[in-house]
């Protein structure tokens, strides 16, 4: 599956495309299929997202999980400050 992610322009928060808008919770992200580029262009134009891009992910029982560790840490928050994590239950290292 393919997810859209970027940062909120004003706050800088990591955000994910939900099909209707943007969320800080990757669990609400949806597969954009081949529509990613078109959505990104529209959303960046409207300044609802900053520095957005498409990431590969897989659907798991607990929700979408990015393939690359960097994106999993972006989705989670710093692994060394779980008190600041937004989605601390995301498995960072694959089993």
């Amino acid at each position, binding site marked *: 599956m393919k997810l859209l992610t970027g940062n909120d322009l*004003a706050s*800088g928060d990591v955000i994910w495309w939900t099909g209707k808008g943007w969320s800080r919770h990757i669990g609400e992200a949806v597969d954009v299929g081949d529509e990613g580029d078109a959505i990104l262009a529209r959303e960046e134009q409207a300044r609802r997202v900053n*520095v957005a891009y498409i990431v590969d992910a897989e659907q798991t029982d607990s929700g979408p999980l990015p*393939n690359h560790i*960097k994106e999993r*840490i972006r989705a989670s*928050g710093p*692994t*060394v400050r779980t008190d*600041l994590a937004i989605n601390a239950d995301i498995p960072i290292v694959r089993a």
Partner: protein
Amino acid sequence: MYLYDSYDQAMVDARVEEFRDQARRRLAGELTEDQFKPLRLMNGLYLQLHAYMLRVAVPYGTLSSRKMRMLAHIARKYDRGYGHFTTRQNIQYNWIKLEDAPDILADLATVEMHAIQTSGNCIRNISSDQYAGVAADEITDPRPWAELLRQWSSFHPEFTYLPRKFKICVIASANDRAAMRLHDIGLELVERDGRIGARVFAGGGMGRTPMVAPEIRDFVEEDELVSYLEACLRVYNRYGRRDNKFKARIKILVHELGVDEYRRQVEEEFAHMRQLGIQPPTEELDRIRAYFAPPVYETGLPEEVDRSDPDFALWLDRNVLPHKQPGYAIVNISLKPVGGIPGDASADQIDLMADLAERHSLDQLRVTHAQNIVLPYVKKADLYTIWQQLDAAGLGTANLDRISDMIACPGLDYCSLANARSIPVAQKIARRFAGNGKEEAIGELKLKISGCINACGHHHAGHIGILGVDRKGTENYQLLLGGSGAEDCSLGAITGPGFTEDGVVDAIERATDLYLAQRQEGERFLDTYRRLGMAPFKEAIYG
């Protein structure tokens, strides 16, 4: 400490208002990200893994209590209650909002601070010896020179768009505590025939192509130093490669031209610069020097310190160093608690360090390139009360220059450039060696970790270095041995195949076990490695 004059303050205030307008235009959609990015970077505002990150300049690592309190205020009001002290003697905040950034810069300006030139292809924060002005081995205080160079390099119109970033370091001791030869230009102040001048080294650096800077001039007169540096930068600005980011640093130019040819071109340019009369008058250096005049020390202070508390005595032995003035000491506050995040300090801890500096260190603090804090002017009689307060706040770790006193970059936990996490590895190493008691037996060992090839964690200069890499989407750690950022500067060599996170901790223990078994009287880990060479360590590590 240097105080802004009206020009300094006007420049910084104007920059705040300029950036406020730029941020407003970005938020209003009048600027695209491509247009805005170079503007925010010129003000130290990056977009990192989780949020915007603001890097605040701490000129040559020198802070007053008032400035330190402002750093705590920013952590508390605009960030998430903490900051991260860096290897450029700066501080950075990980959770900044773009909409707050102009107010943060305005707050910083009220205490003569800013984030200008903490990013971009310009001359960055001038770094120096954290013990400047109090070290017994220095021939002069390097801070006035560092301040002169700060003023010269701030908004320098010719050097705002260099081929790549440019880092300058000034020290004034044969003992290098600032990794001087791993800078684009390193200056060692020396005395010759009763006059102070500078040895100049050019073309050092870490990153993907690490190099130790060669000496390009053995003495530049004090009143010609700015002209000479201008010549060094001009040659680089003219011929440094702008076609390839990875070959754009001055070290590549010096290497490709050859040091003799680079020196020749600099001398030619220097001869030209001398005719232009651009050298600041010596009165300006004298004016700056007055701000760094030695304080009025108390005399007749006691030298003896009660060592009856064993934990305090350990901290004394590890973290407190001799001062050039009788009755005084230099206190190193470790920001490396076992299992903590190297370089991080909470707003409350920052405030406490500011309070202690105000009460016990003539209102001054220093940030070290090893990500610790120094109180440079402490009476020995005050050491116990300072230690008690530090210890109660989690700042009393007694590990200066030990294996757990690691330099570690933020790594993949925070940095968008990183390939692997640094901090969890640092935490595991600290726990392992603090837990098994080997840290004490090993003694001095400088371990440095970077989460990518850019080497912000100085892994090339570690007695033991660790480089995090991405191996098919999995974190992997290469091990290096034999590096040093000190006066015996050298670059570490890779041991062989990389390790997992746990594997690299085991490998380090095998290497240090070999050292403990093979060391001769007085040898540090680095000395034993240099005597024995890589082979036995490789054998011990890989079996």
